[in-house]
């Protein structure tokens, strides 16, 4: 029971991470396509300014909770996905510093270095997270001792790549919608128009990829078994479809905040679809079902799970409350005076 609660919490933490960091990863990946000049780039940087770091802590927490609640899975998953994870980390490092360092030297060459870091550091994690999770859904070649029999390229199979592309496009739509909300004050109207057009265009790609991924999941994984065993759970993929259509509907109405919320619900339900299909496994083995990492063979002791549950049930809502306050306080459109602000990126 305790393990199952932690499985759900584990999924929820990853989902919050995808929803929150998703928009700023997507926006970073879209920056070269959207921004035509330095002012527009700065609008993009500052639209993520007060949020991106707090968002990224959800990744630390999701990783930390994997470690705390399912140390066996943490050990096998992170060592198996070694190269992919290291790429992800290097990307996030370069991305993270680009916010702070970019504006610190008044030279176009210096700035373009960090713009490239932001782009690569956003594009690669979006893609890699999708590749990693698709492979987790499908299972990876691990043996009974938790030793991985594959390479980085093993992960780049068609299903893994489909997952990567879906994440990338999903995050890009999420990011474009965020930019529509945050731009177009007294400056950046062109950027705002471009972001609107981009979101509308990418939505079709998102739709196609989502359908492809749902169908491919039937053939490449056994996630649907849980759903067939308990058909009520089909609510989750249905919610994903509904929210995906909701994005389009809200965009057509020009209700950008609602479109962004729909996008958040889509990301959450798409990820939840995969997580629920995994249960009770956290990392299936494609070599031998008995070698899969599950909640029962990789969980922490009941005492640790209880203490951590107490911490999580108190602290996660507190974090959500103060982060919500930050979002509310800094949700305004970026104006010229925001860019003139001494501390702005």
């Amino acid at each position, binding site marked *: 029971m305790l393990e199952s609660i932690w499985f759900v919490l584990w999924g929820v933490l990853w989902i919050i991470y995808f929803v929150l960091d998703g928009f700023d990863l997507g926006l970073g990946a879209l920056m070269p396509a959207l921004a035509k000049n330095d002012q527009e780039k700065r609008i993009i940087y500052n639209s993520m300014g007060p949020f991106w770091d707090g968002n990224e802590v959800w990744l630390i927490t999701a990783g930390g909770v994997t470690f705390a609640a399912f140390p066996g899975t943490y050990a096998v998953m992170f060592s198996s996905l070694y190269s992919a994870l290291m790429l992800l980390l290097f990307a996030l490092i370069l991305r993270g510093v680009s916010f702070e360092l970019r504006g610190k030297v008044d030279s176009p060459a210096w700035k373009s270095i960090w713009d490239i870091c932001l782009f690569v550091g956003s594009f690669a994690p979006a893609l890699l997270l999708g590749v990693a999770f698709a492979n987790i859904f499908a299972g990876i070649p691990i043996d009974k001792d938790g030793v991985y029999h594959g390479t980085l390229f093993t992960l780049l199979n068609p299903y893994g790549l489909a997952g990567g592309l879906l994440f990338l496009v999903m995050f890009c739509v999420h990011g474009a919608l965020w930019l529509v909300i945050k731009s177009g004050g007294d400056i950046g109207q062109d950027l705002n128009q471009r972001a609107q057009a981009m979101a509308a265009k990418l939505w079709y790609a998102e739709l196609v990829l989502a359908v492809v991924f749902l169908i491919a999941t039937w053939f490449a994984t056994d996630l649907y078994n849980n759903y067939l065993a308990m058909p009520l759970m089909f609510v989750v993929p249905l919610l994903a479809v509904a929210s995906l259509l909701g994005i389009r509907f809200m965009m057509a109405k020009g209700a950008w905040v609602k479109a962004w919320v729909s996008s958040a619900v889509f990301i959450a339900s798409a990820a939840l679809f995969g997580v629920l299909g995994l249960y009770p496994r956290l990392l299936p083995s494609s070599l031998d079902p008995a070698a899969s990492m599950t909640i029962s063979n990789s969980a922490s002791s009941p005492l640790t799970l209880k203490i951590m549950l107490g911490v999580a049930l108190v602290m996660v809502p507190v*974090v959500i409350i103060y982060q919500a306050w930050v979002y509310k306080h800094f949700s305004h459109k970026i104006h010229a005076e925001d860019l003139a*602000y001494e501390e702005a990126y």
Partner: protein
Amino acid sequence: MDVLMLSRLQFAAATFFHFLFVPLTLGLSILVAIMETKYVRSGDEEYKRMAKFWGKLFLINFAVGVVTGITLEFQFGTNWSRYSAYVGDIFGSLLAVEATVAFFLESTFLAVWVFGWKRLSPKAHAACIWLVAIASNVSAYWILAANSFMQNPVGYVIRNGRAELDDFLAIITQKWAVLEFLHTVSGAYVLAAFFVMGISAWHLLRNNETRFFKNSFRYAAVMALIFSVFLAINGDFSGKEVAEKQPAKLAAMESHWDTVKGAPMYLLAWPDPENERNSIEAIPVPGALSFLAFGTFDAEVKGLKDFPKEDRPPVLLSFISFRVMVGLGTLFIFLAAWAWLKRKDPQASPLLMRLLPWIIPLPYLANEMGWTLAEVGRQPWIVYGLMRTADAVSPIAVSQVGTTLVAFILVYGLLGLAAFFLLFKYARKGPEPLRVASAAPAGKEVAHA
């Protein structure tokens, strides 16, 4: 080289680099918070400029510190998976608590502090930097409690083939953790204080912004003196704790080979590990080692020869790191006392002003040496007495670790260059001139059309 050695080098490179930025974060956040509080209380714009100037240096430093911290948490899984599986029940939970309790707070409110100068009332804004300062120090406590479990495992039982949690409170309140935390944060405060004094001295020597830098200097001098003295006292307690809990580390850091009662300390010594002796041993202080380790001059101190060879830490590295750390720590007390005496009119002592900028790197060195001693001196154990480092490494390919090690060195090297270049640039540039606009009453929400 094998996966073990490469993974050790990689972890060492990643932690050492990370720890170039952590101490300044821990110490400077407090100084900035104090400066901003003074601004809120007095309304004197000078203190706001101080908070902003030192805050800018803080932010450049923080950016690199925070991104290099992320890789550490993940490296336990990527490179030390057997360790993670064996002690994750305890170690993982401490890291997870750190993230939820402290790291969120730190990251979220730092952003509010950066973007909130005009959007928050001065009081609320100052509260943000206090939250950052407190959260980063609380964060340090959890991380150091986790490290203390590696140094001196308590509160666990071996069950189901792994170390499982038995007493959570024992782990987070053990003496080792408290001492290690106090030692680490005091070392960090000393570093931050010498950083501020060094930069202030550089400007005072040039008569730039004298009021601004005299005030900064005064705060830093007080901090430097309090914590450099405290470090020495705490260091004595820590040494006794090491003597009791990790006798092999004590013997290695003192290069003490033979078990004797009333062990002396040689002011000049040089280890010769191959022949299990010291090639130089001069100026003995009789009974000093016994006294420092156990509080009595005739106590027996176990020598390295009485530990099986496979249980001995690397002697030379432990010895050097310990001596450098203690030597620098002693130097800091004298320098801090000197600076404190001159705190009201530091410019009256041009020699001190010329010296202090050159001192800035030394606390960095001392901090890194402290960690070298803590971690190298714990070898061959990853968890002292419980798990050997050699048994902890992931079953991964040499080529994988080799590639990432090179990548770490390249990326971190460039990042370090960029960060220190910027710190240098902005430190030299000095504070922004007082802007008339910023004298307008702050605090009201800026309304948008």
